[in-house]
């Protein structure tokens, strides 16, 4: 039951140790295969003529393998009837689709028992009780739900028992948006971080814009809400440690959440994208508490020193220098913040320097990802786009329905918007919201599932025509949490090319992605070395690993 694959490849690696950079950046292509997939999920925000601000905020996507058959299944969150905030019809149910391994999916919502309750917003999937089965946490406006995976295709709502209902200390339900599973104290059990938005209700709801053309009111009208950190007690229950850990003292308007060890100290840190308020970077003090250092690290504001409508976020290393950096989505006219980690605790606001400023100025983004779509070893950017207001088009510069966007990594810390060349799948104009990243068909290319208000969710299969090599690493923690979330991976290809990533399902907007860690390997057909730094502290090294496989790595016992 020790580590699984350490493929011997004694071959003389004098084989053209061609630097990977020599390969031309590949052409990124996506194809929407929703129609033949059998996935007909339409996100229903239940909007009303007055456009209450809740109608812009759903919804998320989770890619998880709930039945452990090696293929990612899809879970969507959904809205509810307004103003009642109840799921009174099938159009409002959350949905779970089982992957049939042939490009089709089967709706298993009812047998699984995951229709949900209330106005759902986000989803986060991980195995919180280390039983080998992926559980689901659903955030929402009036109801957060923890579903325990029973292992037989069904789930049980264990919210009450687990104590993760998303309430404030005074018992008020906070407006949950995103959630992240993270073992912040490295005790081998996944804890839960929940971002909360703001204090809105129908009673206090304001109306903005003209009758018949209502717009979403600015969040500056409402008070922000504190985020929540739940510590996993290991017995199926959680303890709200928001206050003692220094989380709830910071009031923001939380939307996207992403985790990474930004300072390389072995403890996972948490970034929260705040809507029209300064972003938070919670620096982990060795599991004993968090310091909010967004201002000090220069990620609180844009390069202009002002907050923007930060929505989605991803936190990964696109420079291949070992330092996770931040990609944040925002509304049209603001540009997407891109905070590049300098490795010294500071981030550089690189939106224009990286070449995405002028293009993202015209976009409004929700879901966000830093993923290597063409397997060239350089992570690219993806944003799921749409303006927040259905009637945004009263302003000729804004558009409610927008195409998604993909920015190809040009390898010098710059990107190019290649959306126009990426195929029809990505050009669908819709009210996109959350999106999740993962390899739906296990072909080694990262696909994207995007939820959209009022139109079918898109299953964007990555059909990039490159012949680059890849690996997907599935970590199985033993002393660490079973999912291995928080494991930092350094990969050295046969050519000596080095890149980094870490295990997480968090990131994007209100969504949850493939727990398997993906690396594009360019022309390298073998991997010289994979180094895993497990949350337990164990450092595990694999050598001479074959490319183009899904590799399950089980945590070694401590020496």
């Amino acid at each position, binding site marked *: 039951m020790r580590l699984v694959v350490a493929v011997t490849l004694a071959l003389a690696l004098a084989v053209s140790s061609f630097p990977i950079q020599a390969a031309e950046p590949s052409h990124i292509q996506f194809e929407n295969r929703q129609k033949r997939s059998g996935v007909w999920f339409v996100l229903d925000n239940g909007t009303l003529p007055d456009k209450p601000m809740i109608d812009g905020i759903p919804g998320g996507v989770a890619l998880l393998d709930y039945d452990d058959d090696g293929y990612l299944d899809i879970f969507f969150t959904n809205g509810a009837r307004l103003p009642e905030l109840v799921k009174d019809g099938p159009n409002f149910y959350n949905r779970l689709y089982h992957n049939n391994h042939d490009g089709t999916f089967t709706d298993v919502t009812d047998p699984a028992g995951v229709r949900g309750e209330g106005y759902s917003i986000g989803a986060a999937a991980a195995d919180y009780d280390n039983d080998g089965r992926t559980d689901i946490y659903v955030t929402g406006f009036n109801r957060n739900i923890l579903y325990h995976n029973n292992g037989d295709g069904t789930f049980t709502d264990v919210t009450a028992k687990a104590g993760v209902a998303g309430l404030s200390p005074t018992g008020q339900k906070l407006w949950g948006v995103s959630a992240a599973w993270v073992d912040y104290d490295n005790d081998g059990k996944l804890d839960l971080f929940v971002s909360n938005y703001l204090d809105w209700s129908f009673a206090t709801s304001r109306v903005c814009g003209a009758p018949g053309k209502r717009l979403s009111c600015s969040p500056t009208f409402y008070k922000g809400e504190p985020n929540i950190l739940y510590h996993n007690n290991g017995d199926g229950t959680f303890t709200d440690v928001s206050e003692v850990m220094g989380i709830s003292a910071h009031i923001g308007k939380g939307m996207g959440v992403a985790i990474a060890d930004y300072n390389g100290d072995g403890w996972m840190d948490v970034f929260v994208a705040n809507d029209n308020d300064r972003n938070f970077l919670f620096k982990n003090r060795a599991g004993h508490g968090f310091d909010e250092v967004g201002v000090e690290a220069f990620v609180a504001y844009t390069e*202009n020193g002002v907050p923007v409508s930060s929505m989605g976020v991803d936190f990964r290393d696109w420079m291949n220098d070992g330092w996770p950096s931040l990609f944040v989505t925002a509304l049209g006219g603001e540009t997407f913040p891109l905070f590049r980690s300098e490795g010294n605790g*500071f981030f550089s606001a690189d939106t*224009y320097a990286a070449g995405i400023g002028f293009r993202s100025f015209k976009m409004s983004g929700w879901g966000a990802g830093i993923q290597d779509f063409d397997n060239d070893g350089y992570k690219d950017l993806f944003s799921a786009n749409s303006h927040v207001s259905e009637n945004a088009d009263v302003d000729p510069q804004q558009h409610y329905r927008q195409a998604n966007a993909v920015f190809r990594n040009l390898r010098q810390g710059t990107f190019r918007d290649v959306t126009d060349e990426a195929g029809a799948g990505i050009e669908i104009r819709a009210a996109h919201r959350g999106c999740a990243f993962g390899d739906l068909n296990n072909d080694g290319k990262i696909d994207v599932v995007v939820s959209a208000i009022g139109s079918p969710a898109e299953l964007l299969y990555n059909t990039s025509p490159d012949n680059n090599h890849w690996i997907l690493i599935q970590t199985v923690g033993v002393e660490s949490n079973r999912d291995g979330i928080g494991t930092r991976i350094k990969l050295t290809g046969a050519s000596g090319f080095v890149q980094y990533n870490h295990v997480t399902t968090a990131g994007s907007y209100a969504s949850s992605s493939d727990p398997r860690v993906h690396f594009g390997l360019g022309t390298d057909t073998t991997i010289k070395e994979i180094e895993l730094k497990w949350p337990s502290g164990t450092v595990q090294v694999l050598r001479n690993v074959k490319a183009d496989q899904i590799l399950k790595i089980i945590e070694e016992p401590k020496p």
Partner: protein
Amino acid sequence: MREVVVSVLFALASAWPAFPEPCSGAQPQLARISADLTLGNVSAAEARLQPIAASHPDCPEVLLARARIEEAKGNVEAAANLYVQYTDLKPQDSRGFAYFGRLFLDQHDYARADALSAAAMEKNADDPAALGLRGQLLAMKGQRQEGQRLLEKACGLDPNDPEAQYQLGVIFDRDKNPTMAVEHFRRATALTPNDARGWDYLALNLEPLGELDAAEQAYRKGLSVNQHGSLFDGFLDYNYGRFLAKRNQLVAAKQHLDRATEMAPQVRAVWYERAKLNLRLKNYQQARADAEKAASTLDSAHVILDLQIYALLGQVYARLGDTERARKYAELTRQTPPPVRGEQR
């Protein structure tokens, strides 16, 4: 019975201008002169006017043309006298009031400009000169929609009035409608290629449309014609410098922001922008000097908020290793509430 009719006709006829009409035969030339002046071709207008003034000494319109020529040459008092004479002679001609009002506007005498523009509209609400001036004034007074309507009408009646095109472009710029703004600034700069302001605005509005090469060209055109005078643009270097910084041409950006700080040292934004650029260039001491200068410069228009200055200073001092000041400004950054944004989005 028949006699009565005749006498009525006579009475009507006697109310008409005395014969012979003093401007008779000069109308086409006068129209051309007016168009020249609208486009700012003063010397051409003057050359054309000379023979007309000689052949039609009693034609009041000659006075109007002379007034506009004097004004264009900067002889404000002479121009004002001529406008007064003309409006006495032709109290029903809206143009006299409109051009006179424009003179007051250029002298920052807004009350008189306002009154004269209103008077001009009363005489003739279809006069493009009156409409252009009134529209601009209404927009300045905050009645943007009505201002826009009048300016649109003015541009429709006389598409060759560069000032009306420019003012309408400004309204679309304020409305964050770059597509329409670009249309009018393109027209304004085509009519008056030495209008540096127009080129600047054109470039600024091409940026959000992603037409970066066209913006670059417009900035350069503007810089090549940026002479002191009514069309001078003191912020052209500032805007171009920012644009170049966004395009990662940092050395060139620095040159223009350097000039911007010379041209508008009283403006906080120019120091702020150069501080940010110096930060990117890792000229931390320079960045510090500029940021502190920005902090000590008043910004009554709130273009650059205190929050932005604090955030910048926090970064600068952190980069300089001055942890105490860095902490102080970080603290100020935290304590300063973010700006309240527009009520909707």
